[in-house]
């Protein structure tokens, strides 16, 4: 299929955290403005807007989010098409793909893609209930399965089949906190130790509170542009060379294998094929570590290590900032924070920063090709993008 190449010409990310003073509208307006200034475009050049938001309806009682975001970004008088997409925790990644397809197909020349979630306007219990809507409400949540519980069951099985240990899971959190400490926008900017993780309050065995990503507020935005026009706006455009998306059974118990997220495998295959590269060509990746076990599964399912070897890879420090394949240089969902709808877009922003050489203390040397991996629920959907410095 003949499609145009698409590039990212700018990005903007807000601080992630418990942002009591910032509303949903303020957050997305802030991220959008930052991205537009970074790209050096005029608002008039935007053809369409895509935004990922998992559950504005439950978090802030607000639907009709596409129109809302266009409005608070100041675009109401431009009357552009505004699309809100949802794929649970992969809403941001899905927004990227929808924006990508809009430009690739020629329907738009320039689009702004944002992701936003305001999770702290509701009490903790309600935030947990809302996150649980990413699981199977009738056949998992109804019976008492919590969202951390589902990933904990993946961890138990992974430990049983491959000998993965709680210490290895903990090291994922430790590494991501070390990276987050170097990221001025991260929710948590302090380091933690393996002991901290092992001794923290148990949420759902074997995952403690420090194995779990936090509830955060935040927004991120990127500007996509037809690649052949990108250099007009920036001298450091980054091309999206591959985009992949896949779905799988909603309930974890419906999967073929508990320890393999086939949605990742299929989305990755699609993206690698489009980009015409292999996993070994990837220099760094932002993966979906909603829980520590999810990062272990990701590096296996993306083909960076063999199935079952994720724990060993952590032990061998392959995925640290200075390792063979740095994973989650931003701090990941664990330390950077996980404002659900924003995550997928923030992942792209991090890779773009790295490929542009603008990742500050987190910079990976000679980063040429990066990958973002965004999962919905316990693996029912997956969005993957591969980016390359132009």
């Amino acid at each position: 299929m003949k499609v145009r190449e698409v590039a990212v010409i700018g990005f903007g990310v807000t601080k992630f955290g418990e942002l009591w003073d910032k509303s949903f509208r303020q957050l997305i307006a802030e991220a959008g403005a930052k991205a537009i200034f970074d790209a050096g475009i005029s608002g008039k050049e935007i053809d369409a807007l895509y935004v990922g938001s998992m559950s504005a309806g439950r978090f802030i009682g607000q639907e009709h989010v596409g129109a809302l975001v266009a409005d608070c970004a100041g675009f109401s008088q431009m009357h552009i098409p505004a699309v809100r997409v949802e794929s649970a925790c992969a809403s941001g990644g899905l927004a990227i793909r929808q924006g990508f397809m809009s430009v690739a197909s020629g329907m738009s020349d320039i689009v702004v893609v944002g992701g936003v979630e305001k999770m702290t306007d509701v009490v903790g219990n309600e935030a947990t209930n809302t996150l649980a809507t990413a699981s199977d409400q009738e056949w998992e949540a109804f019976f008492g399965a919590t969202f951390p519980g589902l990933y904990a069951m993946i961890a138990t099985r992974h430990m049983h089949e491959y000998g993965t240990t709680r210490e290895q899971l903990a090291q994922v959190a430790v590494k991501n906190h070390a990276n987050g400490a170097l990221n001025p926008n991260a929710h948590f900017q302090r380091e933690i130790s393996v002991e901290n993780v092992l001794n923290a309050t148990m949420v759902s065995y074997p995952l403690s509170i420090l194995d779990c990503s936090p509830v955060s507020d935040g927004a991120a935005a990127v500007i996509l542009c037809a690649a052949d026009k990108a250099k007009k706006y920036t001298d450091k455009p980054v091309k999206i060379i591959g985009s992949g998306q896949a779905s799988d059974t909603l309930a974890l118990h419906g999967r073929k294998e508990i320890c393999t997220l086939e949605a990742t495998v299929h989305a990755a295959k699609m993206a690698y094929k489009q980009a015409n590269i292999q996993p070994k060509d990837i220099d760094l990746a932002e993966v979906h570590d909603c829980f520590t076990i999810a990062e272990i599964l990701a590096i296996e399912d993306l083909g960076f290590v063999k199935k079952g070897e994720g724990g060993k890879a952590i032990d061998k420090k392959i995925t640290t900032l200075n390792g063979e394949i740095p994973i989650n240089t931003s701090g990941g969902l664990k330390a950077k924070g996980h404002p659900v709808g924003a995550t997928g877009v923030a992942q792209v922003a991090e890779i773009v920063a790295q490929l542009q050489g603008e990742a500050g203390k987190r910079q990976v040397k000679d980063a040429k090709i990066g990958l973002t991996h965004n999962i919905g629920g316990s693996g029912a959907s997956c969005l993957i993008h591969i980016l390359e410095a132009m």
Partner: protein
Amino acid sequence: MVDSAVPRFWREIPQRYNLLGNQCGVCNKIYFPPMESCPICRRKSMNKMKDFKLSGKGEVVTYTITHVAPEHFEGQAPYPIAIIQLDEGPRITAQIVDCDINDVKIGMKVQSTFRKIQEDGWLGAIYYGYKFKPVK
């Protein structure tokens, strides 16, 4: 006022009380909960799915002990949740009861039992369904 949608849960009584799934009329694969069509045979199986009552016997494939309970389950924590492979093929997610939480193991043989799953507060309806207990 009550929160939950009573019809939504009433509709699933045959599944929650009696483990009523269905079987593909083409390839004979058994599904729980019942599927409108078989994901393997797809179109060929439409209108050919037959009711099938599962026995409730199975074994634990994986589990977790949930310490931070969700709404409606307060007071029960810590409790085990497991994915159970039913003898007839489908897998199901449910609580394990009548055993010490430290005794739950992958491979443990279990049998379904009828218990209260949750209730819609003090004014709302009570929802019953399956949990699983170990068999010797």
